[in-house]
C-alpha cells in the first residue's frame, strides 16, 4: 500500500492546478453541508426549546368518560340512541400512587401534579376569563422554570398569594401587591394578593394563566384533594411519544406527549430535516461527480505513465488503488478544509448574524462529514480507477 499511496500523492501534487480547483470545489460543498446542517439543527433545537419551555413533555389526565352499555342477553337486539357524555372536571384517581409509580419510571426526569380549571378574574367592573393552575412550586419548577420568567415580584403561591401573567395584569390594571377576585362558579370565590407577575412570551399563557397553590385551587374548583393533570418531563424529548404510550398502558390513564399536541410543529421540523438531508445529499452527489470527472481526466492525461508503471510490473490491483487513494485523499483534504470553513461560517453567523439564536456545532458533525466525504471520494474514484487498471499497457505506452 505504501507505493500506491506514494504514487497517488505525487500525482496529486504534480497536477497542482487541478488538485487545487477540485479541493476548492469539495471544500465549498462540505462547508455548505456543515453550515446548513448546523444551522437547521440549531434552529430546530431553539424552536423545540422554546416550545418545551412552556409545556410538559407528557401530560397525564383522567381518561374520558364514556357510556357503558350492559351486555346483551343472547338472542336479543337493541336499538340505542346514545348521547355522548360531557367531560366534567375530574380528578385522577389515586394520583398519589400514580405519581409514585411515575417518579420511578425509566427515562422520566420530573413529575409534577397540577390541578387546572376555568374561572373569572375580576377587579372592579373588569372581568377576564382565566385558567387556574394549582401546583406545587418546587415540583412545577422542574417542568417549567417559571422563576426565570418572573418580571415583577416573586414566585410565591399559597396563603392567598397568586402569580399572574403580564398581559392579564395589564388588562386588569394590576401590579404586585394589588388584590383581585377569582370566581369559579356556584359561589366559590376568593380574594387574592398578587405576589408575582410572569412573562413566558406566549400570548395565550401570559393573558390567561393564574398560578395558585394546589389547596386553594382544589377548593375553588370543588375537587378537594384532587389533581387533574400530572406533568412529566423525560430525559430524551424524542422518546416522549413512546414513554407516553407505556405510561398509558401501565396506568390506564390518558397520556399525551408534546409530539402529539404539537403535531404540526413536529411535521414541519421533519420536513425541514428532510429538505436539509436532500440538499446535503445532492451537494455530496455533485462533489462526487466533480471528483470522478477530475480523476477521469487525470487517467487520460497519465495514460502513458500508467502504461510504463504496468510495464515495470505494477499489478492492476495496485493501479486501481493508486486512483482510489487519490479519490480518498481529495475527499479527506477537501472536507477538512470545508469543515473548517463551515465552522467559520457558523462562527460568523453567531458573532455577526441576526443573533436570534445561537448555532451550536455538534462535535460529531465534522468527523462525520469528513468520513462521508472520504468515502464519497473513494466511491467516486471507482470508475476512473477501474479504467486506469484496465488500460492495455501496449496502447497506453504508445499514447501521446
Amino acid at each position, binding site marked *: *500500500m*505504501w*507505493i500506491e499511496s*506514494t*504514487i497517488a500523492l*505525487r*500525482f496529486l*501534487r*504534480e497536477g497542482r492546478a487541478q488538485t487545487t480547483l477540485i479541493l476548492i470545489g469539495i471544500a465549498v460543498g462540505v462547508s455548505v453541508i456543515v453550515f446548513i446542517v448546523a444551522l437547521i439543527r440549531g434552529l430546530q433545537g431553539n424552536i423545540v426549546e422554546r416550545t418545551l419551555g412552556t409545556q410538559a413533555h407528557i401530560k397525564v389526565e383522567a381518561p374520558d368518560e364514556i357510556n357503558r352499555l350492559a351486555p346483551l342477553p343472547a338472542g336479543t337486539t337493541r336499538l340505542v340512541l346514545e348521547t355522548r357524555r360531557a367531560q366534567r372536571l375530574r380528578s385522577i384517581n389515586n394520583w398519589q400512587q400514580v405519581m409514585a409509580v411515575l417518579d420511578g419510571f425509566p427515562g422520566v426526569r420530573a413529575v409534577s401534579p397540577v390541578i387546572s380549571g376555568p374561572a373569572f378574574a375580576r377587579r372592579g367592573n373588569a372581568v377576564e376569563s382565566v385558567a387556574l393552575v394549582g401546583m406545587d412550586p418546587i415540583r412545577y419548577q422542574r417542568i417549567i422554570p417559571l422563576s426565570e420568567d418572573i418580571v415583577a415580584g416573586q414566585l410565591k403561591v399559597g396563603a392567598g398569594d397568586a402569580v399572574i401573567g403580564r398581559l392579564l395584569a395589564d388588562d386588569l390594571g394590576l401590579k404586585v401587591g394589588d388584590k383581585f377576585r377569582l370566581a369559579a362558579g356556584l359561589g366559590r370565590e376568593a380574594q387574592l394578593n398578587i405576589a408575582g407577575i410572569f412573562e413566558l412570551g406566549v400570548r395565550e399563557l401570559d393573558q390567561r394563566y393564574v398560578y395558585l397553590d394546589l389547596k386553594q385551587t382544589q377548593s375553588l374548583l370543588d375537587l378537594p384533594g384532587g389533581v387533574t393533570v400530572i406533568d412529566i418531563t423525560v430525559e430524551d424529548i424524542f422518546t416522549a411519544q413512546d414513554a407516553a404510550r407505556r405510561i398509558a398502558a401501565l396506568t390506564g390513564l390518558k397520556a399525551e406527549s408534546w409530539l402529539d399536541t404539537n403535531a404540526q410543529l413536529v411535521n414541519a421540523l421533519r420536513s425541514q430535516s428532510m429538505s436539509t438531508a436532500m440538499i446535503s445529499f445532492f451537494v455530496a452527489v455533485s462533489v462526487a461527480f466533480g471528483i470522478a470527472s477530475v480523476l477521469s481526466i487525470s487517467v487520460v492525461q497519465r495514460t*502513458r*505513465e500508467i502504461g*510504463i*508503471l*504496468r*510495464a*515495470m*510490473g*505494477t*499489478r*492492476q*490491483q*495496485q493501479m486501481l488503488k493508486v486512483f482510489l487513494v487519490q479519490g480518498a485523499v481529495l475527499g479527506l483534504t477537501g472536507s477538512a478544509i470545508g469543515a473548517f470553513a463551515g465552522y467559520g461560517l457558523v462562527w460568523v453567523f453567531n458573532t455577526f448574524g441576526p443573533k436570534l439564536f445561537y448555532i451550536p456545532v455538534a462535535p460529531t458533525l465534522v468527523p462525520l462529514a469528513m468520513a462521508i466525504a472520504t468515502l464519497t471520494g473513494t466511491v467516486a474514484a471507482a470508475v476512473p480507477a477501474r479504467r486506469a487498471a484496465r488500460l*492495455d*499497457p*501496449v496502447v497506453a*505506452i504508445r499514447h501521446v
Partner: protein
Amino acid sequence: MSDLAQLGSAEVLRLAGLRKSYNIGLPTELEVLHGLELTLARRDFASLVGPSGSGKSTLLNLLGLLDSPTAGDLYLLGQATRLLDDERRTALRAQAIGFVFQFHHLIPAFTALENVMMPMLVTHGRPSAETITRARGLLEEVGLAGFEGRKPQELSGGQQQRVAIARALITRPALLLADEPTGNLDTKTAAGVFELFRRFNREYGCAVLVVTHDPRLSAVCDRTITLVDGSIVSDELHSRT
C-alpha cells in the same frame, strides 16, 4: 568458469510458431507476425532490424508479456506463458524483463533515483538500503552520479534515456528489451547507450534485444535478426569484437 559458460548458453526466451493478428474478426483483420521461431540465450546481445511496419514493436511487446500472441508459444525462462493470467504475467514481467522505450518514459513526478528504483518499489514496496545502493550504483554506471535528486524535466534527452536504462536493470532482469532506444538521440549519445548495453550484457549476463534502424549500431551487436513483413528472413552472428 564452466559455470558461467553454462549460464551464458542458458535459454532465456524461446518462440514456437508465434503469430499475432490485429483486428481479429473485423474486415480489417491483419496477421502481422507469421509463425516466428526464435531462441535467445543469456549471453546474446542481439539487434532486431527491419523496415518500418515489419512488426518489430509488435514482437517486442509480445516478448515483454505486454501483449498476447494470437497463436503459438512463448517460453520465458523455460516457463510457458500462454495460460498465465494478468497477475502472473505481471509478476513474471517484473521479475524477468527490463524495458527501454524510444521515448525514455520516466515518471515526471519522481526523481531520477526514484525512477530507477520504481520497478523494485512497485513489487516490493519501501526500498531497502540495498536497493538504494544498487540504484545509486546504476546511476553512477550510466554516468549520472550526482543527478539522483533531479526530476526528469531537469535532465537532457540523453540523460533521461540513461536513467531509463538504469531503471530497466534495477531488477537484474534476464532479458532487456529496447525498442528504438536511441531513436531521438544524436549519434554520439546513441553510441554511448549501446556501450552501456554491451557492458551490462557482459557484466550481468543479461540478454539484450534491441530494435534499431541504424546499421552502424546494429553492427556493434553480436547478432542481427532481420524481420521483413512479419517473418524472420535472416539471423546472423557476427564475430565478437
